[in-house]
């Protein structure tokens, strides 16, 4: 088999994957009678036309990137973390708690402290499914989803009770939200609403790259994820690394919540998590489970998420379309990966191709 053929095979599969994605999304769009081309334009290109839009895209890319990096660490260690949504919510709660508890601590101390709190909040929420998987073999797919629902309820309970803005109690509007947090936990802004969380995301990407590919800790995590049995036979305590990877993964999701709060909302309200936890799974897969792939992937999905908010007014398509596309993209990615790694298929096509050439010659 020639190198050229291998490349062509890859290119064709990727092209087919893209076509399949567009086709499936188009079917849904066609069903609701939308202008398919205009919708894709609105979602994927419209946001790039203005600076303001681009900064909004980047704002969405920041939590996506941080969450997806965390998910990739867990995924590489053999555990699929669908629970980032809940871990993010717990991170936000912990961050808010720290900010509300120590409003007078100076910023250089309080901001790192609150961010650390958000990591702990998310980390604990990630540790639960991690340890349940390691010790009791509980499917993380189910436990993390359940923990998402639990976290969501716990989140509204907190906003409605202990975190409730005293002003809301006075006015009696009853909007479940916290008071505006002290400026000492705010992250600075670069332009518009775009905040310095973007630097945090980039630094974390580099750190995780080093951890996973340059250290023995990452080596053991990847071994546990690639083949748990061989890793165990090789003296690696797989359970420990699985649980540890979930703590890291949860901590990252929690941190994403903290950064989002400190940079954008600056008070805990409903809906901050915005499905970022689930989108993070797609971003992680789309980025090839590698930090340097996740950076561009998170920009792309930030684009889609922001673009979909423009869709209802511009082309009359509900914003849920982004969830549809994410679902399709996950399925297409995992399918395309199997096709690409299918040596049998590749071999068969190669032989057909050769037979064809022989016939022509």
């Amino acid at each position, binding site marked *: 088999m020639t190198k050229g053929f291998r490349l062509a095979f890859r290119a064709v599969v990727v092209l087919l994957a893209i076509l399949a994605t567009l086709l499936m999304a188009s079917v*849904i769009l066609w069903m609701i009678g939308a202008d398919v081309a205009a919708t894709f334009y609105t979602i994927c290109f419209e946001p790039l036309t203005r600076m303001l839009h681009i900064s909004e895209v980047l704002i969405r890319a920041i939590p996506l990137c941080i969450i997806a990096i965390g998910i990739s660490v867990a995924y590489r260690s053999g555990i*699929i973390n669908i629970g980032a949504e809940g871990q993010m919510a717990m991170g936000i709660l912990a961050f808010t708690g720290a900010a509300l508890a120590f409003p007078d601590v100076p910023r250089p101390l309080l901001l790192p402290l609150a961010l650390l709190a958000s990591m702990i909040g998310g980390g604990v929420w990630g540790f639960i499914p991690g340890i349940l998987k390691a010790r009791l073999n*509980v499917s993380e797919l*189910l436990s993390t989803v359940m923990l998402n*629902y639990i976290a969501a309820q716990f989140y509204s*309970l907190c906003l409605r009770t202990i975190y409730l803005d005293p002003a809301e109690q006075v006015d009696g509007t009853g909007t479940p939200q916290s008071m505006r947090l002290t400026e000492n936990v705010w992250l600075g802004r670069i332009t518009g609403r775009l905040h310095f969380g973007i630097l945090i995301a980039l630094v974390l990407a580099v750190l995780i790259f080093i951890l996973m590919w340059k250290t023995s800790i990452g080596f053991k995590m990847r071994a546990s994820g690639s083949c748990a049995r061989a890793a165990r036979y090789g003296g690696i305590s797989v359970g420990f690394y699985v649980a540890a990877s979930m703590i890291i993964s949860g901590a990252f999701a929690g941190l994403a919540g903290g950064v989002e709060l400190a940079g954008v909302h600056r008070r805990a309200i409903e809906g901050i998590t915005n499905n970022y936890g689930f989108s993070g799974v*797609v971003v992680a897969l789309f980025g090839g489970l590698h930090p340097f792939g996740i950076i561009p992937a998170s920009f792309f999905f930030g684009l889609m998420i922001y673009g979909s908010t423009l869709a209802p007014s511009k082309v009359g398509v509900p914003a849920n379309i982004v969830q549809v596309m994410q679902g399709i993209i*996950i*399925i297409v990615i*995992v399918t395309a990966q199997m096709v690409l790694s299918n040596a049998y298929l590749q071999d068969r096509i190669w032989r057909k191709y050769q037979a064809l050439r022989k016939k022509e010659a």
Partner: protein
Amino acid sequence: MLDIITNMLSMCIPFSVALLLASIGEMFNQRAGVFNLGCEGVMAMGAFIGMLIPFMAGGGGAVSEWYNLLGFVAAAVLGALFGLFFGLVTVTFRAPQGIAGIGLQMFGVGTAGTLFRHFVGGTQSIPGIPDIDIPVLSRIPVIGDIFFSHNAAAYLAYLFIPVAWYILFRTPWGLKVRAAGTSPRAADSMGINVSRVRYEALMLGGALAGLAGAYLSIAQAKMFSDTLISGRGFIAVALVYFGHWHPAQIMGGALLFTLAQTFQTIVQSMGISFPYELAVMLPYILVIVVLSFTSRNQITAPTSLGKPFNREIRT
């Protein structure tokens, strides 16, 4: 006090139907060796289409029962199509089932939400289907309320449990399903088309998940919303583990979880001063607790669950 308990118990059977159907469907998937985490998404689609048909027919007002039936049928067909699609992804292309299931779930929930906003718009209710009081039996105090005054779909769903058992353990197809999920290689060597059996099981499972969703929207909530399913699809998957892949035990699990869910309704309706959110959490916590006790050393598990089969790759 007795009232509250009777009330809770009488909700149990009708409220458990969705979980039960979805879970029995998932049981067939897993017995054949495929783990379909997309159940939640299929239920969402079933719920949407099931509600859409009577809604379109009657504009929210009264409609003939035939439209409700049509809603159920459409949901089953759509569910089977989703099963077929999942088969294409996981059986033919052999994609990893867990993550593909998550994709299917997002796709289903997202599509249902998108189409719902376009075709229905906001919260709209439909008349749903009436409860049938079984003559004589329904008049027995307490027992009558708990067991004998529910809607027809609920009775049918419960009648399906022994049928599912019979299919699995007494028919040639059931035998094929069990072999395909435990030793696909052995089944293959006996001339059984493992992929085909898995496709069939996925379609049956999908149809049941679709029906489960339609039951929620037509018979139970009499409406559709984004949060209608709220994790029932995932709980259904967990129930299969809890029920050791056996219809009767799955039924027990479905009733147990429904009891936990009705707790929330009781809290709400009785105005007890108990944080509502904590009551809502209960079934989800229960899932985690139950999984913690049942996930280890599952020797009854179909041993090839989650493993794609490829005749030409020897392991």
